[in-house]
């Protein structure tokens, strides 16, 4: 599903370049739950952004469902965002002016879904995430964990193939974090959504079936012993 070939990312710095990612080659299959780990500045967020097509690699090739991403038009890329990809951010990035209901509805609007379809889809998500009572509240009226729940509901609303999560629990305390991680696990298992997360925490990383470790832009990948799918 996702295939990176010798992908590097650098920024010009003075006369030379500063490498953020070096020569990454990586395959992720449908249905996997991948955790990307590494110390600060190791390039894990950059890698996630490249995977999520929010940034472009400086070198190398990226195939998403066998399509070369670099050659895609802006329009086609937006279409992928609409139909295949969901994002969850550390800072939730909900739209402050919209209610819980409307935040979840937004990607469906962009997808061009009919009003009745949207209604039933949002209702189903609210139900599933236990937020029916909160649907008319604004993000500022919710706790962090609740906000992230909305963030995840919004990410899965358009039934994406893959969710990219950038430190989804980074701003939450451990109880909430566990709740969120269980949710990801559930999505991965029950819905078969591929999940790629960046995390600092070994505990959270363990939720995945594969851990990718980054150091100074290099990938030192190895299989996690507990990768066997239950």
């Amino acid at each position, binding site marked *: 599903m996702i295939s990176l070939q010798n992908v590097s990312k650098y920024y010009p710095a003075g006369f030379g370049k500063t490498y953020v990612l070096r020569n990454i080659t990586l395959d992720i299959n449908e249905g996997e739950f991948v955790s990307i780990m590494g110390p600060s500045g190791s390039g894990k967020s950059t890698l996630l*952004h490249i995977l*999520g097509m*929010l*940034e472009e690699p400086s070198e190398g090739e990226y195939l998403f469902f066998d399509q070369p991403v670099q050659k895609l038009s*802006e*329009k086609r890329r*937006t*279409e992928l*965002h*609409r*139909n295949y990809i969901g*994002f969850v*951010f550390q800072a939730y*990035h*909900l*739209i*402050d*002016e*919209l209610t819980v209901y*409307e935040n979840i*509805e*937004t*990607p469906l*609007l*962009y*997808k061009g879904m009919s009003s009745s379809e949207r209604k039933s889809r949002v209702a189903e998500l609210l139900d599933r995430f236990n937020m029916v009572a909160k649907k008319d509240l604004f993000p500022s009226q919710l706790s962090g964990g609740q906000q992230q729940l909305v963030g995840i509901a*919004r990410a899965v609303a*358009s039934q994406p193939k893959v969710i990219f999560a950038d430190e989804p629990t980074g701003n939450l305390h451990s109880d909430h974090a566990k709740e969120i991680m269980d949710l990801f696990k559930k999505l991965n298992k029950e819905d078969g959504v591929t999940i790629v997360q960046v995390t600092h925490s070994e505990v959270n990383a363990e939720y995945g079936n594969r851990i990718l470790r980054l150091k100074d832009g290099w990938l030192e990948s190895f299989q996690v012993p507990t990768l066997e799918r239950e």
Partner: protein
Amino acid sequence: MLRNYLKIAIRNLRKQRGFTFINIFGLATGLACCLLILLYVVDELSFDRFHEKADRIYRINTDIKFGGNDMHMAVSPDPMGPTLLKDYPQVENFVRLHGRGTFLVKQTGQTNNLRENDIMYADSTLFDVFTLPLVVGNPKRALVEPNTVVISESAAKRHFGNENPLGKTLLFDNAFTYRVTGVMRDMPTNAHFRTDFFVCMRSDNYEWGRWLSNNHQTYILLKKGVDAQRFSQNFETVIQKYVGPQAQEFVGATIDQLRQSGNRFEYSLIPMTDIHLHSKQNIELAPNSDIQYVYTFSAVAVFILLIACINFMNLSTARSANRAKEVGVRKVLGSVQRQLIGQFMTESVLMAILAMLLALVIVALTLPFFNDISSKQLTIDQLFIPQFLPVLLVLPLGVGLLAGSYPAFFLSSFRPISVLKGKINLGLKSAGLRSGLVVFQFMMSVILIVGTMVVYRQINFIQTKKVGFNRNQVLTINEAYALGEQTQTFKDEVRKLPGVTNGSVSGYLPVPSNRSDSPLFPEGQREQSKAVSTQQWGVDYDYIPTLGMELKEGRNFSREFGADSTGIILNETAVKVFGFKDPIGKRVWRMLDDEGKVFKTYTVIGVVKNFHFESLRQNIGSVALMMDPNQGAVSFRLNSHDIPALVKQIEAKWKQMAPGMPFSYSFLDDSFDAMYRAEQRVGQIVLTFSVLAILIACLGLFGLAAFMAEQRTKEIGVRKVLGATTASIVGLLSKDFLRLVLIAILIATPIAWYGMNAWLKDFAYKIDVPWWVFVLAGTVAVFIAFVTVSFQSIKAALMNPVKSLRSE
């Protein structure tokens, strides 16, 4: 999708109430100014278009240079209309008007007279050419018989109440009886002349058939498809065929000979719809406006709208920085740029529509005031005619789209991740453009301030200029002819009242009125080329002292000199035109007949210093004063602290000598001021709108400063923790804005200088644009900007740093 946009827009607007208020209110004020000016301009442009055949009606203008004087007149010879109709099949019809001014009118049998202004003679074809619907009467027959009159509905109400006036008679000046044969609807206000009374032309006891006298406004109706420009080439044939023989007969020279000696005879056509804004002829039926004012006001409107739009744009852009996250999120969720643009556009159009609604409210509230200063009768419902609807829709739409375009395109073009990561500080990124816009705004404000000051100084200059006579406390009696033979007695009686220092009976006063030049000749030289075209005013012994004119040399008319009936006093211009080195004792000839055969010899006894008798837009022409006691204007010089009481006493004398006649008077300085009412009006309107422009610009600056202060909250906090004083922070925040205002002043100065000199060029007597006007305008702009900005900077500087840092 649109609903989603609207929802977000409304919530955003509500969330940032202050910003929304400033933005909408500023734009609404700008739009309101625009709408007011639009109403004014449309009204100006609509003059005379209510006539169904307006596009085919032309007035004949006469341009004659005769005896050294140029005359550009709105009147033409009486046979012109009939001749054109007879000789040229292109002419469908004609109508002549002859303005007769003010009469005292009453229904026959009644005692009380009413003053009625602008009464005129009209041909019976009036209703065929013009569109003046009759409520009562037959337009085909109404003005055919002599001594008939068509009156307006309001005049009918004044004189006949609810009775049917048809067939009843009106008495004019207690002498002429006219039978009412029709009642027309009141003439619209947007006509280049208005009257309540059209008297049948055949009632006029005129010596018809004179090609050398120009007394009638002649309007011709051309047939469909006739080109007026080409048609007017026929005037040369008319001149040769008709004017020529009469010139030969009366002046003793052929047209060609006259032309060779520097004279000119020309007729031309002006479309009736152009008269109000483009005609500057003498002897118009009513004062016209000027297309220049239409341009000036339109420019001011565009200026203000631009300033308001810039505000709108500036504030929206600045505020949009706070929306960056939303944009990023939306892009990640799959919004394409087009949709984001749509969203921002929706928002700004929504605001613009709200502003437009508010603007309509403002217009409704301020229209009476605007009518007052522009002396128009505009109504708000004039905005809702079909032609205006597109404007009402397009204006907010256009403004909204224009103002929304920058934030829309700018914000939506970012890569979402850079926005989400907070890498780009959008507020600072667009600072360059915003600075440019602020400079532009203040530049226009400074130009408007300078313009206002120069206009006011010029008007002030005119009003206080030494005009060559003392116009203070000079009272003139209107309609003095009502006194008849008692005139002299009345003057003498009033003269005896304490507080009246002098009095005079004369033909003309030094204020604009209908009068024409006639030729004087140096003694013994009756050739046309030697003629000096001169205003010839009949006066009495007391004219010069009453009006406070000064003699340069010689003496005034005096009772001690028996031969003063042949004495003449010239003004300096006349002396110069005659070329007299030592004018006293020189003799001049005055033509007494039209043929140029009978002359009377006058001896120059004095030279009066030049005085202004027309608008200061014009140079002073030649004037000759002669003794003639049988004249109609009575004026008194007063010297009293209790003018009203004195006027009451004069009125009492009037009542004795002219019973039944309304007493009406005016002060010379008022009449003088009336000359410049147009300028004053322009001045007032420009002043009002420049104040508004500055207000709007400040509103924008206020919002912008608030935003900048907010953006730099953290910086301010850090600086304060590090020990910065409040003053230094205020300086820091104000410095940037003041620099922009200074740049604006530098750019505005030459533009304003050039513009004001162009405006002043119109005046024969004018001020120089003083340098300090620019300094003052600049200081005002800087001061206002500083006050506006420092309010925000001080607020920001006084904030507790801990608060701003903790929120980060």
